[in-house]
C-alpha cells in the first residue's frame, strides 16, 4: 500500500480478522512503516477487543486461580532446587551406578503411582469445578429471583403502563421502576422493528435529559420480560420507547412509539 488506508473501518476489519490476501498484506506492510497508522490500528484493536464483553458470562472454576498461584510458586521453588540437585549429581561417582540399579524399579513404580494420583486428582478437580459452577449458576438464578421479588415487593416501586402512539407500532408494555434501588423491570410485547432499527427504552427524568435503559430488538410480538439496572436516584416523570438506528443512540433521536407517565 502506498498511502494510508482511506477508511478508518479498514483497521477495524483487519483487527477483527476479516481481511485476507492483498487487503490484509497492504495494511500490514503500511502499518510497519507508518507510526500514525500503527497507532490507529492499536485503537481499532481496542475497539474490537470490547466485543469480548458481548460473550455470555462464564465464571472460571475456582481451581484455575489455585493452579495458577501454585504454578508460579512451584517455578520459584524449582529455581532454588536446581543448584543442590546438580551438586548432588556431580558428587555421585561410583555409588551413582549402584544406586541407580536399585532405585530404577522403585522410581518407575513411584512414577506410575504419581501418574495415577495426578489423573485422579485432575478428575476430582474437574468434578469439584463443575459442582462449584452449578452452585454459582443456581446462586445467580436465586439472586435474580430475589431481585425481582425485592423490586415487586418494595412500596416505592412504581408500575407504569406504556401506551402506543397512534400510527406507530402496536404494543403493550409495563415497566416496574424503583428509583432508590436503581432497578427497572420490563414486561410486555411490541411489534418487531424494521430491519435497520432498534427500540430503545428511556427514563424521562423530572429534570435533565432522558436516560437510556436499554436497546432491544424483539424478533416476534411475543411477551418478553427482562430486568436491568439504571443509575440510581433518577426521579422519573415518564417512560418512553423510541425507534432508533440499529444499536441505539446516546440520546433519543427517533419517533416515540410507546409512552407512559410515571404518576
Amino acid at each position, binding site marked *: 500500500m502506498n498511502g494510508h488506508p482511506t477508511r478508518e473501518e479498514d483497521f477495524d476489519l483487519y483487527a*477483527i480478522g*476479516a481481511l485476507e490476501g492483498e487487503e490484509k498484506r497492504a495494511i500490514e506492510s503500511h502499518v510497519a512503516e507508518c507510526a500514525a497508522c500503527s497507532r490507529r490500528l*492499536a*485503537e481499532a484493536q481496542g475497539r474490537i*477487543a470490547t466485543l469480548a464483553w458481548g460473550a*455470555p458470562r*462464564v465464571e472460571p472454576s475456582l481451581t*484455575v*486461580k489455585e493452579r495458577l498461584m501454585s504454578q508460579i510458586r512451584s517455578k520459584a521453588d524449582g529455581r532454588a532446587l536446581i543448584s543442590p540437585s546438580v551438586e548432588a549429581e556431580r558428587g555421585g561417582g561410583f555409588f551413582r551406578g549402584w544406586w541407580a540399579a536399585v532405585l530404577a524399579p522403585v522410581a518407575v513404580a513411584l512414577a506410575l503411582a504419581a501418574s495415577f494420583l495426578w489423573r485422579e486428582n485432575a478428575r476430582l478437580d474437574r468434578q469439584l469445578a463443575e459442582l462449584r459452577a452449578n452452585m454459582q449458576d443456581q446462586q445467580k438464578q436465586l439472586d435474580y429471583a430475589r431481585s425481582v421479588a425485592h423490586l415487586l415487593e418494595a412500596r416505592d416501586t412504581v408500575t407504569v403502563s406504556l401506551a402506543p402512539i397512534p400510527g406507530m407500532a402496536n404494543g403493550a408494555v409495563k415497566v416496574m421502576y424503583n428509583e432508590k434501588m436503581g432497578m427497572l423491570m420490563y414486561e410486555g410485547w411490541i411489534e418487531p422493528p424494521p430491519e435497520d432499527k432498534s427500540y430503545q427504552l428511556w427514563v424521562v427524568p423530572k429534570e435533565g435529559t432522558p436516560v437510556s435503559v436499554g436497546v432491544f430488538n424483539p424478533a416476534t410480538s411475543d411477551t418478553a420480560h427482562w430486568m436491568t439496572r439504571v443509575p440510581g436516584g433518577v426521579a422519573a416523570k415518564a417512560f418512553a420507547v423510541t425507534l432508533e438506528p440499529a444499536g441505539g443512540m446516546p440520546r433519543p433521536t427517533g419517533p416515540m412509539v410507546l409512552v407512559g407517565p410515571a404518576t
Partner: protein
Amino acid sequence: MRASDAALIERIVAKDEAALAALYDRYGRLLSSVLCRILRDKQAAEEILQDIFYQLWSTAAQFDRSRGSVPGWLVVIGRNRAISLLRRQVPSQGEELQENTVVLPFNLESAVAQEQLLGRVKGALEGLPKEQRAAVELAYFEGMTHSEIAARTGDPLGTVKTRLRSAIETLKRNLQPETA
C-alpha cells in the same frame, strides 16, 4: 484504595503474587467468558486462561504500561490463542508482541465500569440487524475471514463485506466512550 492496572503490573514485575491474584480477580471472568465462547470447551478455555496469566507473570517487564491496556492485551492474546487452537494453528510470537499496545477506549479497572460496558456491548450487538450481527460473531468469535463467512452463510462475498463494514460502523458509533 484500589490499585491501577499499571501499579499492579509494576508489582508483578517485582514478583508480588498478590498483584497477579488481583489482576486475575479483575479480568479472569472476562477472559474466561470470551475463551469459552470461542472454544465452547470450558476445560480447554481454562487451560489457556491459566497459561495467559502465567505468561503475564513471566513477561510483565516487557509490557508497555504507558501505551498498552492490560484487559486489551489479555483479550487480544486470549482470542488469538483460542482461535489458533480452534484452527489447529500455532499462534505467532511476533503477533503477540504487537498486541502489547492495544488501546482500549475505556478504563475498565472497576467492576462497575465493566458491568456498564457489558450492558452497552450486549445492547449494541443485539441492536444490529440479524445478518450483520451473525457476520460480526462469525468474524470475532470464530475467527472467520470475509470469504469464510460467505462460504458459511452462502451469501455473495460483496454482500458479506458490505454487511460487516456496516456493522462495524454502527458498533463504532454506538460504543464510543461517553463524554461528560
